[in-house]
């Protein structure tokens, strides 16, 4: 009979498996209301005791009621062993509830097995821990999950509106800060992907590097100069001046100004788009401008020979970059390897850098762009030397 099934189940749990069967555990295991579970336990105890087949059962009860304590009437809720039940009941002036809390074979020294049993069963049923409870709350509904469009939403007001119930701080840093870390990775990877894509097209990449460098320079005022200073040590002042000369005049360029909005926090997404597109569109103008800017032959040679040399450059660049990497002490170390494997990757969806991530990719790009240029410059020179030596 269905009624007797639970008795057999409880019997199995208690005697065969030697478990501590609390009402909550039984409720979750059998899928019944907590009050039914309590009644089942009681029924089992009564029948077992009547049979008196010799199996020792220890029962703990829950007692609740009014207790006069320290001058005020306190509502006391206590878990007691069976032998202390009557004593506790007599202490209470009014008894609010009594029911079986748990059944187990062994005598419990303290209540930690009870806690552990309940903890385990709740842990495995976390998502519907109130399913068998006696109280239903209509207001307890999960919030709608934040969707992907929320992340790239430029305005920081958007996440605030989306969580009307979240009492998270109105402090402007609250929600975006939570979003920043995942976006940061996307931002950096996106930057690399975008960079790699540009690298596939040689000149677009140049312009892109320069384009990205400009916002980097304008945005992260402190970082690029420091990076430039560090690069100074490696590449010499001449290269440094070249870089600065290139970066500064590039700023007034209109494409740079369009790219500049990427610096502002408000529109992080549009800028990478524009930046990604712009180099493609304006490669030629950039190239021409590049050539105009160039004062040294090396640079002119570089741009001229870029296509021809690029395959070789690419290979040798990889080598060189790795060697230079060992020299460098900045985080540009991670920048060069990533463009190389990602060369074939098409431009991924534009990154959505937050303010912080903007600075970093921009900086790495500044340095990367500068680096690339510098490395190229140096490479060229070295290669010339090599070739000369080879010739010689």
């Amino acid at each position, binding site marked *: 009979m269905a009624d007797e099934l639970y008795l057999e189940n409880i019997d199995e749990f208690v005697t065969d498996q030697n478990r501590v069967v609390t009402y909550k555990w039984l409720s979750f295991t059998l899928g019944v209301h907590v009050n039914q579970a309590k009644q089942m336990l009681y029924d089992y105890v009564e029948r077992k005791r009547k049979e008196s087949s010799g199996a020792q059962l220890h029962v703990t009860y829950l007692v*609740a009621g009014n207790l006069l304590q320290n001058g005020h009437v306190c509502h006391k809720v206590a878990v007691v062993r069976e032998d202390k039940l009557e004593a506790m009941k007599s202490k209470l002036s009014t008894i609010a509830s009594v029911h079986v809390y748990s059944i187990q074979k062994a005598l419990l020294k303290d209540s930690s097995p009870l806690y552990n049993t309940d903890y385990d069963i709740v842990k495995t049923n976390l998502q519907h*821990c109130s399913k068998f409870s*006696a109280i*239903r709350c209509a207001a307890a509904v999960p919030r709608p999950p934040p969707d992907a469009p929320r992340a790239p939403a430029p305005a920081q007001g958007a996440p605030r509106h989306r969580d009307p119930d979240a009492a998270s701080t109105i402090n402007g840093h609250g929600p975006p800060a939570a979003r920043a870390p995942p976006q940061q990775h996307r931002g950096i990877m996106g930057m690399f992907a975008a960079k790699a894509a540009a690298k596939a097209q040689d000149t677009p990449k140049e312009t892109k590097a320069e384009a990205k460098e400009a916002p980097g320079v304008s945005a992260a005022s402190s970082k690029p100069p420091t990076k430039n200073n560090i690069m100074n040590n490696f590449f010499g002042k001449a290269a440094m001046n070249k870089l600065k000369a290139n970066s500064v005049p590039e700023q007034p360029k209109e494409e740079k100004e369009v790219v500049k909005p990427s610096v502002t926090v408000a529109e992080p997404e549009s800028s990478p788009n524009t930046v990604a597109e712009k180099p493609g569109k304006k490669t030629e103008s950039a190239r021409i401008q590049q050539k105009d800017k160039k004062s040294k032959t090396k640079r002119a040679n570089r741009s001229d020979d870029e296509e021809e040399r690029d395959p070789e450059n690419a290979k040798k660049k990889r080598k060189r970059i790795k060697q230079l990497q060992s020299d460098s002490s900045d985080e540009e170390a991670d920048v060069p390897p990533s463009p190389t494997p990602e060369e074939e990757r098409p431009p991924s969806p534009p990154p959505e850098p937050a303010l912080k991530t903007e600075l970093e990719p921009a900086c790495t790009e500044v340095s990367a762009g500068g680096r690339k240029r510098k490395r190229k410059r140096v490479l060229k020179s070295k290669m010339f030397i090599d070739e000369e030596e080879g010739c010689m």
Partner: protein
Amino acid sequence: MFSERAAPTAQGLLAPPAAEPPTFPRVAVAGYSDCSQPFQLGERSFSRQYAHIYAVRLAAMRPGLERRARSRWGNDIALRRLSELQAGEKCCVVGTLFKSMQLQPSILQEISEEHNLVPQPPLPKYIQPADELFLEDELQRIKLEGAIDVQRLVTGKGQRWLCGGTTPRALAGADAGCAAGTIVAVYGCEQDDGLFLVEDHCFADLPPPLPWSGPSSDRFVLLASGLGLGSVSGEALLSTQLLVDVVTGQLGAEGEQSCAAHITRVILAGNLLSQNTQSRDTINKAKYLTKKTQAASVEAVKMLDEILLQLCTSVPVDVMPGEFDPTNYTLPQQPLHRCMLPLASAYATLRLVTNPYQASLDGVRFLGTSGQNISDIFKYSSMDDYLEILEWTLLAGHISPTAPDTLGCYPFYKSDPFILTECPHVYFCGNAPHFQSKLLQGKEGQRVLLVAVPDFSATQTACLVNLRDLTCQPIAFSSFGADSED
């Protein structure tokens, strides 16, 4: 309140399973509005000095105090600034109290090399008989002293508070039962030696009352604080589980469960994590030893998340941060970030709120803190009773007068959000040593329920506030341990 209602069906579950057991719907919150916007900080700038907050505090409370002074000592008393004082003239001065205490921890003394002092260990109280009291206003300060009468007042006899005749406490001199930073109006005259002889004093008194629109049926709010998760000892764990079970309606017979369905809200007033999670031992150890160690608070916050999830699926919960919780140290403490509680913050019933927390629940205005303000006053004054200190702050018109002197505080400069402008209906503080509550009646019809919420990890007691009649009952949990009783 629970017990009487539940008594008839108390033994109902000591029976074989019967028909389908009833489920009770949780009583819905009729009206909730969060009034703690003044405590939420947006952009924070710490480039300002703390003097501004005192100036703002004095300017804001001066009109009220002048009114009180006139009503107390007559309309024709002379209200003077300290700069306008004339020797021998009886007048009333409004200013900020400052207490000069020798034992007060001072960072300058600690780092001063000429003293070669070992930093002072934390004491439970820093008061001393030789402490001196000063009154400061915008420009000057003057040392306060009392006459023979005040001497008696010093030892705590005779003087009465402004309203309601509560515990007598003194103002000036050694046994100063008040705290620095309070705005006070003193009546007396300046002596020839430059001291101000105080004859009488008064504080701002209870703020104007709020209209009462409480519920007509029984509605409960559970106040608990000091859950203390992450502590080494696990005694309070089962009690915490019992608390959650009572509130979510799993524990108890039917009568008790139906009463528990009337709990409309749970407010956790701070110290959800235990002090043990704050240990900084890893700082002193070598890096290679502590590389894989996780901060204790990580595990504790996971436990907290699970507990909050169980609560949130059944009842709206407001979580206030406390002294040991992972949020900023200075008052007002900002809400815990919901990324720490991924499971629980999926539910709309979880609200993460600031440390002084003010909200209107079902027409009843709640205002409370996690207890740092009260325990700070406890350290620097002779008052021993948390409820007494709580009442005193209400009468002084300021939630935490010792901020920023001895309690960390944000350098406000436009307005002081801790000034009490309206009288709340329920005024609580968390992490008190034991449960205390009192209903205070004011002269203008204010009714305030003062509740000192006990530390749950130590006392296994929480508070149930009945919104209908502003009564409060403690609810205590116990299990059996190695020793038979409790």
